[in-house]
């Protein structure tokens, strides 16, 4: 069984992002990159799936040379091999999905994991698009997963609760926090990763239909207000929530 996990290389969430001089991209100085946090759940689930069903896990990433760091981390966690689809341009989600779908097809992977979203552009869409392009079933925002034979049973997070869904292979799963507890890249794993290969090839070209015109930071949040510290403040709090915040 071939299992694929698609990983992206994103700015560390603790980094302070600044918009670059062109107004369309982020200023790269001092920005550190990490494995997309949701992809860590995807990697872990891919490894657990392999441990349960046997087979082989390949990590696929689309982006520049720097994405190799993220692939290397996946290899250190236990993924068997990596593919870097090289592309330094900015492309939209659909064009990313098309290139990934081609590679997944070429790899013959029948179980594909994604993070539910990348925390850079937050489109939450590449997993679903890829499933559609491949004609695979898909389960998004998964918080639990069981695969037996052809049968896939997953729990997914929905507003205010969980939903249990059943489908069949081939399948794309997008991982939500809570799906598992990602393992550390053990130091032995890191050493073993040195001997694993990362295949590099140009990402297949597809037209991008979405163009970033301008990037701006969200407006500063207004400071919080402390109405009081005991029960006597309740009336004022209710008044503010009703009249100012208009939420009740």
């Amino acid at each position, binding site marked *: 069984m071939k299992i694929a996990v698609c990983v992206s290389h994103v700015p560390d969430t*603790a980094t*302070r992002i600044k918009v670059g001089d062109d107004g369309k991209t982020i200023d790269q100085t*001092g920005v550190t990159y990490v494995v997309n946090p949701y992809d860590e759940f995807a990697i872990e689930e891919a490894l657990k799936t392999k441990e349960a069903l046997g087979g082989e896990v390949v990590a696929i990433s689309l982006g520049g040379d720097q994405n190799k*760091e993220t692939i*290397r*981390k996946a290899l*250190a966690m236990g993924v068997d091999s990596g593919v870097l689809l090289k592309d330094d341009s900015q492309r939209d989600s659909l064009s990313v999905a098309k290139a990934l779908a081609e590679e997944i097809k070429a790899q013959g992977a029948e179980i594909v994991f994604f993070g539910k979203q990348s925390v850079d552009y937050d489109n939450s869409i590449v997993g679903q698009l890829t499933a559609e392009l491949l004609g695979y079933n898909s389960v998004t925002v998964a918080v639990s997963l069981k695969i037996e034979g052809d049968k896939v049973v997953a729990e997914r997070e929905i507003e205010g609760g969980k939903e249990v869904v059943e489908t069949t292979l081939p399948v794309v799963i997008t991982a939500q926090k809570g799906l598992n507890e990602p393992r*550390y*890249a*053990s*130091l*032995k*794993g*890191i*050493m073993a*990763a*040195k001997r694993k290969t990362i295949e590099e090839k140009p990402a297949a070209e597809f037209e991008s239909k979405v163009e970033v015109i301008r990037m701006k930071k969200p407006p500063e949040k207004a400071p919080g207000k402390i109405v009081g510290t005991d029960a006597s403040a309740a009336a004022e709090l209710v008044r503010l929530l009703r009249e100012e915040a208009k939420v009740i």
Partner: protein
Amino acid sequence: MAEENKAEALKGGEFLIKETNPETVFIPEDINEEQKLMADTVREFVEKEIMPRLDAIDKQEPGLTTSLLEKAGETGLLSTSIPEEYGGIGQDFNTNTIIAMEMGPSHSFGVSYAAHTGIGTLPILYYGTEEQKQKYLPKLATGELKSAYCLTEPTSGSDALSAKTTAKLSDDGKYYILNGQKMWITNGGFADILITFAQVDGDKFTAFIIPTDSEGFTRGEEENKLGIKGSSTRALFLDNVKVPKENVLGEIGKGHYIAFNILNIGRFKLGAMTTGGAKRFISVAVQYANERKQFGKTIGSFGAIKHKLAEMAIRTFVSEAAILRTSGLINQRVEELKAQGESYSSALIKAAEEYAIESSIMKVFGSEMLDYVVDEVVQVHGGYGYSEEYPAARAYRDSRINRIFEGTNEINRLLVVDMLVKRSMKGRLDLMTPAMGIQKELLSIPSFGEEPEGLLAKEMEAVRKAKKAALMVAGSAVQKFMQKLGEQQEIIMNITDMVIEIFAAESAILRTLKFANKNGEAAAKYFVDMTKVYVSEALEKINLYGKHAVSAFAEGDELKVLLLGLKRFTKFDPVNVIKLRREVADKMLEENKYCF
């Protein structure tokens, strides 16, 4: 590293008389991808396993620290200095340094970890027989066995060799029987084996491996400590404890080699851990300074707070420069010795001994730097720094131990001069020729050469001269007191402090120059700022320490000459340190963390 660079690596202590090519020093930007991944794993481990459990660890919840050690073992963190043939993953010295730095902020756990992996494991690795290594190292690597190191006794602390614990060979010649008491033993509450020192036949100081399930062994109560409350510290009692003579570690009567060589490495590691700790705690202070408002502004906008943030960062930056520089030297020496056919163990012992002066310097510098940092982290937090609700209080109390164990800072200061003098006497390090040269230079008219030009060229020149100041003071003190210099501890402390400032200041310059050579001056801006502040103040301190020293032993014309010499060798145009510090602080406030 290029071949020609390798040839230039200085011997231990040689930094005082020779210059270093910046390209030869190891700096954070030289850390390779694999080392970075390992550092990430350690950081994640500390973040996920240790940080959420700090309270429980400090309460010494039963089984917690041991299970965390085992988890660290699973992740590979206990085995980085153990070679593969003994179940480890044998990483080089630099990688071990980087890992120690990442373990730095882990409070009590870091102490348990360091005792197990360092003083608890290395004696067997370096001095054990093949059987001992096969028997213990694989289990120490996984954490199945936990280890402690028992040197100190109630009546022998700094004077470790005066230990009273005895070991007597049994009548049948098969066993040693140990009697005595050990004190302050880290991991004492749960260790499965003890590296213990005892006197054989009254005066042959010898190391033993003692299993704690031996009959006659008992543990005292946990000490109620000022800090690192989560680390187990106990007195241990040996009452006719019988161990097979195969448990002798190293040779009979050679225990002091083990004790001291292991300490060399321990001191270096302590410098690395304190540096790692400081980086994290500064970020805590910066974040608080960005959040807390008084008088309608964030406290980070106040100059007094900026001063603190910047000064913490500067000392930490310098400490990191010096620790990695030292690491790089030791690493290179280990690799050279291995290439010459030395075993892994003997290469490491020899390399660590070669740079024992630098390691003592880093022990003192790192521990005092961290104490300064945590003190100011509390201060930046005001009253909240005094509350257990915030991380500052724990950082403050946990830092203090570092100036006491692994040889007190006083002992390490004495050692720096002691080692320099001994190496000079033995002809291992030629301090005499340059010292004589300086005597001559003192009597000649100073030449007013060109102002040096180039990035940090003035600073480099100033450090070059400061070395002369130190040699001048040390040389005249040695001449004055000869064999009795040892009785003049205050003067020795002054000399060591001059030497420490020189090593630190030079390390900062080298780090910054190497970085700037590669990334350009603009990218090195804050490194340059920090280096300038540090060097300018180091020169003032060097001048002051020198004055205290020479005033104690010279008078009349001799004193005049020495004071003039000091002035000449520590002259440095004042720098606008306030402006530079503000820039450094503003950068951190903008990045919301220690970002160098």
